[in-house]
């Protein structure tokens, strides 16, 4: 199914392709959501991603419905998406467009009403809660807008939390915390409580926590939403650095087009459908 792109979307394409009008026009003419998702929204500045092999994340015709009272709400409508290893993908869309729902389906925190979600060749919808928890702990790292660090644990302990649930031995955890703190530049702050850190530091800590179990995928839900633009950009820098260092696939939900522009690909959702 194809759709006619709107004037606003064209403007967005222009912005995305750095005012490369030819590319933007080509994109509009051959408008197909899947194609746009997989090819046309690729940032030319992004490193070369192997998109020939199997995708790391595969969302196939996923629909998600909720019931609010007697009313049925379709959060996602037959959404399909492929994300490859080492990619940074930004998902944008207005509030209620279904982007967080999509992220949570990819993270195995929710199950689709129809369709399937696979991560690292594993169909999440067929996993038990217990197996899914283990899988999530090992394969996926989450970063939230509100950080969600434990207020009464110092930073070091906070970084360890995924390791606690994974049953990682204490010594190994300690070593991992040192590495991660160094990676995000918080080595000196390990004994501090979250309330003693700045917003940017807290989010860096949250990212470090997401990296604890060396996940293949990081799912970031509005990671810069509570930060100023400078700190926001620093977080994106950090994501790029992580991708470079660990070849981690990163899916970012954002309202900020400047952030989205920094991603390898940019997908927009509207009313539960991929529109670009």
């Amino acid at each position: 199914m194809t759709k006619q792109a709107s004037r606003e979307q064209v403007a967005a394409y222009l912005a995305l392709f750095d005012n490369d009008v030819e590319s933007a026009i080509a994109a509009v003419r051959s408008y197909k959501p899947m194609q746009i998702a997989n090819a046309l929204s690729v940032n030319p500045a992004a490193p070369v991603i192997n998109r020939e092999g199997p995708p790391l994340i595969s969302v196939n015709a996923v629909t998600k419905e909720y019931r609010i009272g007697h009313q049925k709400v379709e959060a996602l409508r037959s959404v399909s998406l492929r994300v490859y290893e080492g990619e940074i993908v930004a998902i944008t869309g207005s509030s209620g467009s279904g982007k967080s729902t999509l992220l949570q389906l990819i993270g195995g925190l929710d199950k689709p009403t129809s369709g399937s979600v696979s991560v690292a060749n594993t169909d999440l919808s067929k996993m038990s809660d217990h197996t899914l928890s283990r899988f999530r702990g090992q394969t996926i790292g989450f970063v939230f807008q509100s950080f969600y660090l434990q207020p009464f644990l110092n930073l070091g302990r906070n970084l360890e939390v995924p390791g606690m649930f994974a049953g990682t031995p204490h010594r190994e955890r300690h070593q991992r915390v040192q590495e991660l703190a160094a990676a995000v530049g918080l080595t000196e702050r390990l004994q501090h409580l979250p309330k003693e850190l700045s917003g940017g530091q807290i989010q860096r800590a949250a990212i470090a926590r997401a990296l604890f179990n060396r996940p293949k995928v990081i799912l970031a839900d509005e990671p810069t939403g509570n930060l100023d633009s400078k700190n926001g950009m620093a977080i994106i820098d950090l994501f790029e650095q992580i991708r470079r260092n660990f070849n981690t696939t990163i899916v970012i939900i954002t309202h900020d087009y400047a952030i989205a522009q920094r991603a390898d690909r940019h997908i927009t959702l509207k009313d539960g459908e991929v529109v670009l």
Partner: protein
Amino acid sequence: MIHLGDAIILATTKLRTRRIRTGITVVVSGLLFGCLVATLFMAKGAFDSISKFNAIGLGSRYIVQAQTVPLTGVITQDKDLQARAQELYTQQVADKKAAAKKLGITYDATADRPPVISPDGKATNTFLDISTPVALQAVREYMQAHPQPGMGDLKRTAAPYHPKNFYTTETLSTGDGTLVTMNNGVENLTTNQPDLGTQYQQDILMKYPLQLTPTAISRPFMLPATSLSSDHPDAIPIIVTYSAAEKVLGMTPLSKGVPAAQKLERIRTLYRKAGSGVLAACYRNTVSTDQIQTAITTAADIAKNKDNKDYQKPSLIYGLPAADSCGPATIARDVRTTDEKSQAAKQKQFDAQFNTVTEPDQQKIEFRIVGLMPDTQDGAPSSSASGILQGLVGSSLAGVIAVPEDMYNALPSAARYKAVFNSTPTSVMAIFSSTSTYYAEFANDTTARAFIDNASCNPSPSGCSKAKPFMLNAFGSNSIALQDLQRKFRRAALLGAGAIVFIAVAIMTGTVGRMIADSRRETAVFRAVGAGRFDITFVYTLYAIMLSVCIAVFALGLGLLLARLADWKFWQTATAQAQLVFGGSNLSLQFRFFGINTAVGWVLLATLGTGLISMILPLLRNIRRSPIKDMRDE
């Protein structure tokens, strides 16, 4: 899966959030459980103390007293008995008329009241006037035809309950005679005599009946042989209450509000001195008493009329004996004519013919204290704490002066005393109820309680049935009731604990539930970083346990503190009271309000259980929720 140490780290963070609410929960729940713990410590201490004190008297024994039911009400309305009494009355009046005529003396038949009366004058509503000799004679005949239940009946009814022993006590009755204490060794031979009610209150020999008591029952109250005086070998041995001993020893009773230490000291003094306590009493039969009273009133009349020239002294004047002798009245003046003396002799002959005592009899009797027992409430209700304690746990011999049977029978002058105390009962109650009381002793409170509950007579207007011939009561102490009380206390404590657990669950559910509910997003984050439902359950279970442990520690500390405080505050008073109530033969015993009670362990477990119960619903709600929903609530 999360390790225990890590789960504890995460659970600890829960305790540190919402500190005020958590603090209030710990304090309020801790107060509830603390009070329960304190009660258990104190109850254990108190019951242990009671058990120790029980061993002094009869408290550790399970004796049931069997009493016959006086049938006064039934008998006075019995028409056959009334007819028999009327028959006896008619016969007696006829006999007396004949005897008077034969002796040549005057007989006034109206002086002998008829035995049947009708308050409203109706023939259908008649009663036997049991104050008349003829009515008593009819009653005596009736009682001989309908003998009171005896030891055989008790053995029969008690057999299914396997009693250990049987005992009998006998009331030492002086019949129509009186036994009056000679205060300071002298009789009151003046006109200034208290009224009868006051005498009954003041004179222990009038207040309490003398009861010949088997050694098995009296032994626990005996003073040590070494403390007994041998100065009065012929005195009747008696076991008396503390207050009676104070009177015998001439000690002023302590006022009610004196400190515990003073009460204890008084008990010590009593036990030290009681062995030398001797009570002199004067026994007089009715003739002797009448002659003494006549002597007193005549002397008073003469003194009053000493300036009255018209006053004529009686022709026969009795004189008073020495006040410390308990001797017979003397003849101070006898100026009767020969005819008057002849008439008096004939009257005496007439009285003797109709079973009236005619010769004076009196003798001085000494009693010596050989044992002490706590005062009883004499059945009167008491609203004071000590009164309630006395009624509840006291060990005593139920308002009597006990005469140890073996010591009494070994007295050199036992035969002489038997002449005094073998009088045929003439008082109404003495006829109606046996002078013997029977006892059965059981091995434990259960059989004793069962015997009382199942075999005691529930008196109807016609008395008791043959199957249940006795009124049965716990005797000597309330050890049976005490066991019952302990069981009831346990039940009450259990109910109280249940109520407290219920309230605590409500409070803790509020806190734990709020805490878990508030942690929904955090739970979602944990789920996102790899926590399974079991991990989440583990962390919150540890949180609930830690909260419960805080409450348990607070409750235990508070309970210990309260119980210790109560013990510190009340043990001296309670010890003094216990010595008063139980008997102070072992003055080293202390009544404590603190004892290690294993039930406290159950309370602490209940606290833990309360925490876990309070956690279940909120946790179930939490782990069943989709973490996404909680994140989306943001």
